[in-house]
């Protein structure tokens, strides 16, 4: 399956079927820090991804910030 990663944008190939949990573990990603998206909607953590499926792993942590000690505005 094709896995699209963002920031920076890149693509990886994995052999399916594979569970979302296992894929994230292989990529060493926290579940709290990303969303898994396929066909325009969210893929739940217990889903099994098919070999021909295309998925996007989208980070959700934004870095907008000002120097520590002040308010975040980014």
């Amino acid at each position, binding site marked *: 399956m094709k896995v699209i990663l*963002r*920031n920076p944008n890149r693509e990886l190939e994995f052999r399916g079927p594979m569970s979302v949990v296992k894929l994230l573990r292989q990529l060493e990603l*926290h*579940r*709290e*820090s*990303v*969303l898994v*998206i396929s066909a*325009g*909607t*969210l*893929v*739940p*953590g*217990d889903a099994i991804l098919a070999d021909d499926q295309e998925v996007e792993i*989208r*980070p*959700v*942590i*934004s*870095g*907008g*910030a*000002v*120097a*520590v*000690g*002040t*308010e*975040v*505005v*980014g």
Partner: protein
Amino acid sequence: MKCRVCGDGAVIDLRRHNANFCADHFVRYCRQQVERTIDQFEMLSPGERPLLAVSGGKDSLAMWDLLVELGYDTDGLYVGLGIGDYSDQAGHYARRFASDRGLRLVEVDLRQRYDYDIPTAAATTGRVPCSACGLSKRHLFDRAAVDGNYDALVTGHNLDDEAAVLYGNTLRWQVDYLQRQRPVLPAGRGFPRKVKPLVRLTERETAAYCVLRGIDYLVDECPMAAGNKHVAYKEALNGLEVQSPGSKTEFYFGFLARMADRLEDEPTNDSSDTSDTGARRDGPTPCGRCGSPCDGEICSFCRLVDRTAGAEPVPVHVLSTRAKATR
């Protein structure tokens, strides 16, 4: 995985609530959380007109959608920061969101209006880009909210943002900043009321909300943010959250419930000029140049403009490389 409400297939699991939701019930959950926050902290009353700071990212666009859904007639304000491609794209997402929904987006472009941009301001003043940027945005947002007679200025800060700032301020025992870390700051002395109705939602939830509502937002990060401390704090807190779901909520809402009031009367020994951050609100006088409230004669925004307007523009890559090196 089944939706807690209707039993259909769930699309998201929220471990901190020990709950899974289908798309519809997740959207409803988000609305309820925001509604509850607005009521609990008396952020907005029905019929009030807020101005929302819009960046083109997930939080501000989710916030706009949620406010409109909850019946608030909300205008957006977008500040063109001049951070290369990033700003071009951010503006595009903000404009498209507004025009698709017939909403009003007010724009201020730093280069056009004040003859500077964030990379150039950072380079000419020696400030960290986020500091020059924060100062500029705070000034322009406050000013637009007051001048436009809006009832409140809304920002899209989420639970992760607030928990990370709380963590950073606690690590350094920045009592003066901790005193001001509230989801609502009342209007007064020339400042608008400032409210953060997203503080009960994590950023994973605001991003999920956008995906499920079909909101197209700028996923790419500002090049100035790479590797900063704020991101490191968020990651550290998410590490705790994985071990112990609900930690971020406990940390932030525990602070508000059990600590914030105690700090209220705590004296601080901070004597520095804090007009940048608005940290000190007693007795500001109008800036001699622009009339905004400030602690000296000329406010820090006007001083920034004085120093940087008309300077030779500095390209983004010079700054983003330097920012990484100095953090």
